């Protein structure tokens, strides 16, 4: 008898996963694109920090008694002009947003002169506002909401697409080079697919973790700790959802890619899966202020990894909602992995023409 006994399912899976990771980390293209992605994240966090600190006051030119009124507001950067004509000239040359000139007949005894429209930012400073009370403050400014939506959407979109297509390529590469027959004779097909999904999930997850850490450190470094406290919980949910959501997509990429035999055909055969990745991205960007769309998104397995963290961030999700949605996602993932494995197994030895969905499912 041979001294060697076949590795268990777990060990075989890990060997496959390890090779996927090793080969990926050896690829210069992968390392460079990861570096660029990380730099972009760091740059945008830092840029966001600086931009929020340097809010410019509206610039105005003031004439005579208007100078004192303008300076009293404390919210305008005032340039003194000797005459009304000189002040108007400054407006025309766009050195200031508006000119304030004395006008005894007008309210506040001032007239505000704009260039081509009423200078709203200046008017807002000068206007008298009644007392304001908001019963249910949303607590977040719309621009920030948009940024967070963009962040979740983009990160999920880019990672799922990058690693999804890496998995697809790797499946077809094994089919095209025929090594798959040796692999099938050596390890269970289940280990083959699981190893691929696991290896690439680890890479994707590592990349996401790096991005999250970098974003967190960047926010702290640029004095945005308040923002970090705001985003924190949704960030944690995002990571958890990403984990399962990614496995779901990875299984779909592996199963569909197994239908073709040439790397050139990967793009067309995986395009339905690619759509599943793109749709949540566009939905969250266009409908991040629409509670109905977000509500649906947060329960549909393919968009939950983006939709649910978004709702957690907005504070519109009850405490049990992420758990329920996660349950749905995990169940769907298990089902899709089961079907995917079947398609994968039935397609691996069929080279040449594209395997039809029916052949792949029935065997």
């Amino acid at each position, binding site marked *: *008898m*041979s*001294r060697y006994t076949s590795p268990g399912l777990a060990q075989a899976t890990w060997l496959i996963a390890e090779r996927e990771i090793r080969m990926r980390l050896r690829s210069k293209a992968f390392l460079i694109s990861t570096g660029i992605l990380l730099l972009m994240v760091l740059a945008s966090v830092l840029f966001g920090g600086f931009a929020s600190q340097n809010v410019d006051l509206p610039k105005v030119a003031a004439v005579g008694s208007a100078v004192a009124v303008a300076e009293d507001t404390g919210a305008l950067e005032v340039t003194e002009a000797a005459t009304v004509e000189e002040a108007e000239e400054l407006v025309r040359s766009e050195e200031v947003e508006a000119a304030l000139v004395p006008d005894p007949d007008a309210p506040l005894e001032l007239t505000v002169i704009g260039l081509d429209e009423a200078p709203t930012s200046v008017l807002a400073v000068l206007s008298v506002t009644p007392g304001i009370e908001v019963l249910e403050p949303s607590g977040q400014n719309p621009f920030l909401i948009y940024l967070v939506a963009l962040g979740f959407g983009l990160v999920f979109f880019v990672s799922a697409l990058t690693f999804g297509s890496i998995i697809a390529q790797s499946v077809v590469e094994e089919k095209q080079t025929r090594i798959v*027959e040796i692999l099938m004779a050596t390890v269970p097909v289940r280990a083959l697919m699981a190893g691929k999904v696991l290896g690439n999930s680890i890479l994707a997850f590592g990349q996401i973790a790096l991005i999250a850490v970098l974003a967190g450190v960047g926010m702290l470094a640029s004095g945005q700790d308040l923002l970090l406290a705001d985003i924190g919980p949704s960030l944690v949910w995002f990571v958890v959802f990403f984990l399962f959501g990614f496995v779901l997509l990875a299984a779909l990429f592996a199963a569909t890619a197994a239908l073709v035999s040439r790397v050139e055909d990967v793009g067309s055969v995986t395009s339905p899966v690619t759509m599943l990745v793109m749709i949540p991205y566009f939905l969250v960007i266009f409908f991040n202020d629409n509670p109905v769309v977000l509500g649906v998104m947060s329960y549909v397995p393919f968009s939950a990894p983006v939709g649910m963290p978004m709702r957690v961030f907005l504070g519109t999700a009850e405490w049990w909602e992420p758990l329920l949605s996660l349950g749905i996602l995990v169940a769907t993932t298990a089902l899709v992995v089961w079907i995917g494995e079947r398609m994968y197994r039935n397609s691996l*030895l069929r080279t040449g023409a594209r395997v039809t969905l029916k052949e792949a499912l029935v065997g």
Partner: protein
Amino acid sequence: MCPAWRIRSVELMLELHSINRSFGDRRVLTDVAFSVTGGRMTGFVGGNGAGKTTTMRIILGVLAPDSGSVTLDGSPLTAEARTRFGYMPEERGLYPKMKVAEQVTYIGRLHGMPTEDAKRNTMELLERLGLGERANDTVESLSLGNQQRAQIAAALVHEPEVLVLDEPFSGLDPMAVEVVQGVLKDFAAKGAPVLFSSHQLDIVERLCDDLIVIADGEIRAAGSRETLREAHAPGLYELTVAGDTGWLRSEPGVRVVDFDGGHAVFETDSTETAQRVLKRAAASGDVQRFAPRQPSLAQIFKEVVQ
């Protein structure tokens, strides 16, 4: 160069029992049954599309038969037992961007070898197959012949107990064929059943102890090389004498196949007739040569396939 495992000698018997397989409406294998005996090299020959590759895939469990079974020493093959097989598929495949040694080691580890053992066996095999210097080159940078050697190393790295090799000699130069033959014979000598297919009948003729001929998904002939030869050349003899052999024509029970003065090839109805002919030839002059005529494998192949 001679680690402990090379001394092992346990003879195993691989058997196929009436295997049937169809792809859709097309029947590829019909009641395929044969055995591969441990310690012997078994050649598997058949034309294109005869069913060799399908049979081998079924032995390895890559494909499932519609009916029938494969047993090793009488017990049905399990996935566990199959990992101790060495398999070389017809469609060659290795990862193009992986280094040769790294790749062979990886396949060894997939078979459950500890990394150290896998590395050691890999280097030994690559040295023996003349690929030692290319161990750290990527597979895609190798010539086709060298890729083939790497493929053989990948099939043997885990000290398999049974070898199933689809066309192991295709694409090899004569030197490499010699080396690979030596390696395979060593495995057989340790008691491993070795089944290999080849289109190069002269190699099969030189190398195999047993022979299996398949055509249209059916086994047409199976047995030891000698048995097959005798079965397909009943009573064919060759005679060369100093004088003339014309008298053969009038000898009862003899049919002359080929005749040229002192040389004749003839068919006899029994060994007694052959002995009688030899005595008469010896009585009429010097016999330079008298021998049963061995048909070549190519002839047997043509005969059983038709």
